[in-house]
């Protein structure tokens, strides 16, 4: 096992050292990623500040949703966000280099980089989560702790699945790469929303198809004992692992279809 993962670990180690060796630049990247996180938080704050509650969530509950969903998405972004660059590799023909190596394509692509600068953004999400939990007087019972941890873990799995599913679609889209932004970054945006305000098509897409509601919204409702919409039971938050399995199924299907479709860069 150790010898099989060694090349990947060597690659990741090299990327991490490379990123942190230009200290000023790395520091600036960390600060800008922190600022992006804070501005996203400010959007939530400005909106919920103006009214008492939106779609059954008040500001403090919205902070828990943001904390869970954005931490999960940011970790996924840190780990696999660079698969977004696949269209560039496809266009430049450099993807063929990956195909020549005797290792699985997806594993190579995922370990080809890691975005340490996103650490600060994970930090923003996590801090908001803690503040939200305290503001809601969530008691530290085994079940509440387990639900939060499970939600972060499965949320991260769901978000990495979305990145991979989007990457698989890039083999077909290439120039229309931005189209997958609607599920990836649209999904990130959707994950911070109270799903109860959505119309049926949006519920179908972001509630179940790309199950963003399971990364923050539904676990929060279960955690805070709030009414759950869409005819789901009160314990819907515990169903997040099912959503993660579903998303990884989609991701696998998309990636396999994509790589089988790929004919090479003509190099």
């Amino acid at each position, binding site marked *: 096992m150790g010898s099989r993962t060694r090349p990947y670990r060597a690659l990741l180690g090299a990327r991490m050292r490379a990123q942190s060796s230009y200290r000023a*630049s790395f520091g*600036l990247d960390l600060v*800008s990623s922190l*600022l*992006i996180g804070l*501005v996203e938080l*400010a*959007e939530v704050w*400005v*909106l919920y*500040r*103006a*009214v*008492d*509650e*939106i*779609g059954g969530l008040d500001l403090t509950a919205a902070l828990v949703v943001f904390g869970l969903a954005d931490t999960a998405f940011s970790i996924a972004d840190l780990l696999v966000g660079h698969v977004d660059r696949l269209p560039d590799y496809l266009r430049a023909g450099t993807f063929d280099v990956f195909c020549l190596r005797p290792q699985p394509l997806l594993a190579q692509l995922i370990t080809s980089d890691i975005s340490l600068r996103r650490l600060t953004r994970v930090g923003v999400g996590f801090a908001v989560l803690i503040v939200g939990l305290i503001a809601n007087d969530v008691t530290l019972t085994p079940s509440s702790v387990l639900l939060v941890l499970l939600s972060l873990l499965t949320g991260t799995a769901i978000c990495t699945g979305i990145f991979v599913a989007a990457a698989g679609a890039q083999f077909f*889209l*290439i*120039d*229309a*790469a*931005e*189209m*997958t*932004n*609607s*599920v990836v*970054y*649209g999904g990130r*945006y*959707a994950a911070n*929303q*109270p799903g109860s*305000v*959505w*119309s049926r*098509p*949006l519920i179908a897409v*972001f509630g179940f198809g790309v199950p963003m509601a399971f990364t923050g919204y539904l676990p929060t409702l279960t955690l805070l004992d709030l009414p759950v919409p869409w005819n789901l039971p009160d314990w819907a938050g515990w169903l997040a692992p099912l959503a993660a399995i579903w998303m990884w199924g989609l991701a696998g299907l998309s990636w396999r279809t994509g790589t089988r479709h790929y004919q090479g860069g003509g190099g």
Partner: protein
Amino acid sequence: MRTRVWFRIHWRMFVAGWRRGSRYRAAALGGLVANATFGFLKASILVAAVRAGGGEIGGYDAASITAYTWLSQALLGSVNLSGRSDLAVRIKDGSIAVDLLRPVDLQTASTAQEVGRALFALLPRGVPLVALGVLVGGMRLPLEPVTVALSAVSIVAGTTLSFLTVYLVAVAGFWSVETRGIQTAYMILSGFLAGLFVPVTLFPGWLLAVARATPFPCMLQTPIDVLSGRVTGFSAGQAVIVQLAWIAGVLLVGRLITHAGRRRLEVQGG
């Protein structure tokens, strides 16, 4: 005579940019799908917020907040809120030396081209999104000739202002080769302060004052307000005049920086 030549050159640059924009069809389609998704998501939460606020928040009712949502997505393909420009790349790789040899003004000629390219995006991205807003969201559009004319001026002014401001980001490269930090700062702040995520009128007083002290609300919020009919008549005219004042100010700052920067620029290699 000289003004005629000036206009002809800049018109040609504008048309060149427009035609360049028209080449990227698949990219425009991709952008349209992404904008539409965000439009649906934003419309649902903002309308819910208006209902929760008793039918009105920050001067918006359900109809005008819907219009705001779809118009902001429709203009997003044209207004530059990313801070990126071809010019920044050209300064970094040294091709700027060729640009500076040309007998045209760097600031106005490059901006004319970028604005041409950006305004083309109104056809494949802006129009379908507005149509979607009208059909699905029940959004209204102004029909009075005065409002239509003012809206057109306001959209062009907002787009031009955004590219003139991005020009300032690019020419910072005369001093420091790498301008990514400034560009990222622009990207982070511009969307929020321009009113892309929530209308700036929802901001608390102090944040609204901060936003108004920057050119960003004039890039997006003002064209949306004029186009949606949230500000009308005299105040609409006033809003457009504020836009034009910002354009004049940013234009002047850009001239001064370009003038000083030309003396600083060092192109490496041969």
